[in-house]
């Protein structure tokens, strides 16, 4: 039976009961896709029954729609306003312990049958040479719908409001003497994800996330010098209220002043410093030095050809001293505002929260259904994710967050105990090796600390360290009042490369005796 896309939405709504989609989406889809057969439950039945008939031991189908809107400006002009949508399905099958996957944007039952056959053919061709069969940890059968937390749908906010907001930001930056250029932008993503598995699960999820940002540049044309200051506020799982309830104007005014200030700031003297890292900076250090090495696929060499492996290995679980005793990291796919927060992962495993590092000791991994059995576990932590209907789902990072101090330690308390140090704000240059030992991070602004007080701005700062040395040097954490949950919108991993959005909650934190270098130093002798 053929359904229009309007029927598809209505049928889905009735079938799934609890799902409440905004009314605009019915209209938009019906208007643009009136004649396409997209009854997703029927399509799912076609995929799963075809896979079974062709000998697959397991199969799933994801039918996903992505909506995107982006506005970008520079100075007093709009560079681009774009909106787009992308719709299709991907079928994953397990045949003789070998994965196969195929995907298409053509939403008909005949195409689903053809594409499922292709996925099986790929798995079967490869299974002849397969050395070790893939096994899956068990999962509960689920029927559910879920919507991420947001108050104001950004796709309902007029484009003109977004343009005016960004131009107002730019004007505030340009009002500061010495500012030469300003770029600002916002991007919004809406994912509508449907998953059906041969285990019997049917799950529908609706997510919204936003990525506003800006860069202010101060150029000294006479000397040929220029400096930039990016926004310190990062992407979040949120609606347009994130624009309205956050002090973007305050941040860009400060950014403008700081970009100009950076031109005249003192260049850093390389050496050992105590570091006070603000959450707007520390989140990315957590991402690279904690989030990635605790991915089990890396430890098991699955990423050896691209992102790399990990200094952590299964036999170190529960034994390795990752950091000082005050360091606790939790993986959490339920964390409010977290970019990697979902109700279920892309193979129907419920979102969970668990410790990766407990009281300084490395205790656990990020896992999926095909990874968990390889370390003797009979359940997945739900880390499977694909960035598109056309991408093969694979292990991706949940929100990985540093727990704050239980007492009300302020950032000023942390600074007060530093004789010679640097406080760093914002995401700058970042680089880390393929096993996640050696890293180097820059930032947006750097402030010298002398005898417990902020003494002035520095520039050209980057710090280099080794992951366990660095976290072992952590001797102070801010309390809940210093805790923020910044995130990164596009974390790359895998082959073919995929992008993941993920957050890292953290308080301000203090690290003793870290090696700082000057990135502007003449490098050759």
């Amino acid at each position, binding site marked *: 039976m053929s359904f229009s896309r309007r029927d598809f939405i209505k049928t889905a709504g009735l079938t799934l009961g609890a799902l409440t989609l905004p009314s605009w989406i019915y209209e938009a889809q019906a208007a643009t896709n009136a004649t396409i057969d997209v009854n997703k439950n029927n399509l799912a039945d076609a995929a799963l029954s075809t896979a079974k008939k062709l000998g697959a031991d397991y199969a799933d189908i994801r039918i996903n729609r992505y909506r995107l809107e982006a506005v970008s400006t520079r100075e007093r002009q709009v560079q681009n*306003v774009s909106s787009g949508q992308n719709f299709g399905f991907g079928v994953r099958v397990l045949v003789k312990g070998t994965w*196969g996957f195929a995907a298409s944007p053509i939403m008909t039952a005949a195409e689903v049958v053809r594409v499922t056959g292709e*996925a099986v053919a790929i798995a079967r061709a490869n299974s002849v040479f397969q*050395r070790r069969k893939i096994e899956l940890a068990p999962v509960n059968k689920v029927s559910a719908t879920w919507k991420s937390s947001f108050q104001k749908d950004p796709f309902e906010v007029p484009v003109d409001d977004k*343009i005016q907001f960004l131009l107002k930001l730019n004007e505030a930056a340009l009002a500061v003497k010495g500012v030469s250029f300003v770029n600002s932008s916002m991007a919004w993503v809406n994912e509508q994800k449907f998953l059906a598995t041969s285990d019997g699960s049917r799950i529908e999820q609706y997510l919204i996330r936003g990525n506003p940002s800006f860069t202010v540049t101060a150029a000294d044309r*006479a000397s040929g010098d220029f400096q930039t200051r990016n926004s310190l506020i990062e992407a979040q799982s949120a609606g347009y209220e994130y624009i309205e309830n956050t002090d973007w104007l305050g941040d860009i005014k400060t950014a403008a002043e700081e970009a100009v200030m950076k031109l005249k700031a003192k260049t850093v003297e390389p050496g050992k410093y105590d570091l006070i890292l603000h959450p707007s900076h520390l989140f990315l250090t957590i991402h690279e030095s904690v989030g990635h090495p605790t991915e089990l696929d890396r430890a098991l060499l699955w990423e*050896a050809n691209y992102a790399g492996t990990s200094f952590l290995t299964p036999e170190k679980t529960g034994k390795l001293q990752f950091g000082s005793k005050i360091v606790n990291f939790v993986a959490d796919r339920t964390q409010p505002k977290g970019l990697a927060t979902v109700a279920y992962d892309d193979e129907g495993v419920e979102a969970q929260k668990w410790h990766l590092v407990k009281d300084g000791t490395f205790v656990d991994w990020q896992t999926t259904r095909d990874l968990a059995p390889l370390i003797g576990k009979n359940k997945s932590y739900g880390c499977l994710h694909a960035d598109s209907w056309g991408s*093969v789902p694979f292990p991706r990072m949940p929100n990985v967050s540093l727990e704050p101090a239980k007492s009300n330690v302020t950032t000023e308390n942390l600074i007060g105990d530093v004789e010679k140090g640097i406080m760093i704000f914002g995401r700058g240059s970042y680089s880390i090796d393929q096993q996640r*030992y050696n890293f180097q991070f820059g930032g947006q602004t750097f402030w010298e600390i002398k005898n417990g007080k902020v003494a002035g701005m520095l520039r050209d700062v980057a710090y280099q360290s080794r992951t366990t040395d660095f976290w072992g040097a952590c001797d102070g954490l801010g309390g809940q009042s210093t805790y923020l949950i910044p995130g990164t919108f596009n974390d790359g991993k895998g082959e073919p490369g995929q992008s993941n959005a993920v957050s890292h909650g953290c308080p301000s934190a203090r690290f003793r005796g870290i090696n700082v270098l000057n990135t502007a130093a003449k490098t*050759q002798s």
Partner: protein
Amino acid sequence: MLLTEKESKSITDKILSYVKADDASVGAGSEKLSHLRFAQNTFLTSGQRESRNANITVWIGGKRGTSSTNDLDDASLKSMVEEAERIAKLAPIDREYLPTLGKQTYKPVNSYVEATANISLTNRAKAIGDIISECEKTKVIGAGFHVARAQTSAFATKNGNFGFEPTTSVSLSMTARTADGQSSGYFLRSHFDVARLDTQRIAREAVRKALEGRNAKTIEPGVYTVILEPQAVADLIGNIAFGFDARNAEEGRSAYSAPGGKTRLSEKIFDERISIYSDPWNAELPGSPSAQAGLPAQRIYLIKNGVLENLVYSRFWAKQATKEPTAGPVNTIMETTAPISTAEEMIRSTKRGILISRFWYIRSTDPRTASLTGLTRDGVWFIENGKIQYPVKNFRFNQSITQMLAPGNVEMVGASERVGGSEGGNASLLPTLKLKAFNFTSQSEAV
């Protein structure tokens, strides 16, 4: 599934027929991507994705709006046009608007091979199966990625231009690790013709590097003479031709800006042994026949014998500067007019230096001097008195690219070969380089 030229033209015509705006630029594309990923000497994921898309940018009274979709039915295309026009009506005037191009003539390039577009699943499975067998025989742990891609890209304007570009590419990258986890080798090559992809060479080189990299020693970081294999050059500066933006340079925010609001155009900024250019008709590395906004691409030099020959002007910035817009770049080719040296000659001439296979996780630290940080990976060897002495552990570097290629720092240049960046990016034609000084700032125990 790939759109033909006729189908593409039909789609762009249809989109344009819905346009009420003053001006419009439209695109229609399709892609077929097929991959096989292996690790731990076993197959991981493998799949095929077919996709297509359409997009439009319109201008109404100089106001601009853009929209895209992957539904190519009539109603969706019409809706896409209406969405772009709705946005344009809300947008402020696009001060950088220039009328879209009228009909252009494109000299064709040969960059599409049917056998690459329709790769044989069984042949691919067998090729990778053979590589895994070789890994087992040599007692290394293999991981790799084989990917074949076919794409079509069509573009058209309301003012009468139309172009259609089919391309294919296939690549295999492979990492071999010794069983004790103490050594690792990597090799990557790509081509547009699957018959020209030598999968056995790729596997052989990755395994050789892993085996020869065993028992690596630790040496102090510092400034060393280095020999960079083409892969290492690709990782550092593989897309260097795309970094010569005139506007950034003239606005004072580029490594090619000069004090006093000037640029470094016509200065000898690199060693005279270095030339960098773009050529759409290179037989080994065909580029798009169309450059920015649909201008017919030309062969253009960015660096000629070390001299900054051209900065790249967008159509808008060219008009501001009363210059011609630049018809490129569309690819990166680095060559030398000096005598070509082999890697062996470079090693023989080195008193004390380091041979580097590959770099990883490269990020900018200072755009004023094009300074980068990153790490060596998968094969580093110490050279002394004209011979490779032993493998060494990895380093982190902090290095300005303008200093690295500066006059006097480039000692020898090899023959260019097609190689892609291991962290991503397009393939380029790049040589082995011997550089007098390169700055390593710390050690990394990563393998």
